[in-house]
């Protein structure tokens, strides 16, 4: 519940708050978003698996975001598109996490169904 509320507040803030991130840094934001999305999905997966630990989640979130942005910055400096590595890794992990989440949810639903059938019988 609290995460959803947080998400809503963030969206509202993003819509109405006038923050000016300097244009030079705006290229790093997409990579940071990807990193953040990846850790949130990872956190959700850990939660479903019952292994969720908030300190790992929090450190992973900020660490991923910072490293992704730093990589993108370094790539810009060296004129090598290193940010592609971040995009690739986080992208594939996103899909992985999503696949596992899907499986977990489906198996949960299935086991619930089975239980209900057993109750009926």
């Amino acid at each position, binding site marked *: 519940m*609290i*995460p*959803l*509320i*947080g*998400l*809503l*507040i*963030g*969206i509202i*803030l*993003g*819509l109405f*708050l006038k*923050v000016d*991130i300097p244009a030079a840094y*705006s290229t790093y*934001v*997409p990579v*940071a*978003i990807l990193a*953040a*999305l990846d*850790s*949130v999905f990872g*956190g959700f997966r850990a939660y479903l698996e019952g292994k969720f630990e*908030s300190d790992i*989640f*929090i450190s992973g*979130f900020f660490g991923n975001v910072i490293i992704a942005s730093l990589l993108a910055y370094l790539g810009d400096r060296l004129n090598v598109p290193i940010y592609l590595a971040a995009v690739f890794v986080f992208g594939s992990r996103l899909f992985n996490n999503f696949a596992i989440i899907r499986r977990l949810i489906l198996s949960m639903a299935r086991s619930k169904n089975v239980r209900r059938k057993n109750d009926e019988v």
Partner: protein
Amino acid sequence: MRRVSSQLWVGIICMILGFMITYQLRYIKTPKYQYTTRQFENLVKEAEDLKKQRDELQKKVEEYQKRIDEIEQSVASTNKIASKMKEELDNLRVLAGLTDVEGPGIEITITPINDISNKQPSQIYYKDLIDIVNELNSAGAEAISINGERYVGRTQIRQAGLSIKINDSKFDPSQPFVIKAIGDPAILEGAFKMPDSIIEVLKKIGGFDIKIVRSNNIKISKYNKLLEYKFVKGSR
């Protein structure tokens, strides 16, 4: 207690994520087309109509110019002072670039190369044109035109959006530019043979096909816009 604080942290992180995503979406908002297709068609039609109108008006101007010439001629033929004045007037017109002129000179054609063999799309930069005109003037050119636009004292050559504006007419900088100049062909051409001349620089940069042709009969048309002083007051 620990559960609540960890939930709070997750909430904060979701907030940051939501903020970043919405911020980014707002930042790269793609510009929408201001006009619908139908409006676009209408605008194109309007532009064409206006072009037609302009051409007709230009024709009218020429007609009136002819009538003025006739009147001047008839006055000049009856009166000696008038004929002297007419001569002077004609001379001044030539000097001001208000007449079609012809004579020996050169023709420079600059064609930006925009095919596959050239990696970067090349465009003519308005300052290059200014440099060329300047060079021509210093080489003693007596009349200059760029793409048929006569270069006179009040000619502007400047970037206007995506096009180059010369005498209030707009030209596409990725299209060929033809610069004509009347003067001593050898001197005019020689001005661009120096190693640091603008043409050589353009050749070195690449992406342009530049031709300089000498000719004994360069035709340059007159300045075809209205020359009018609103603020200048004459004093003698």
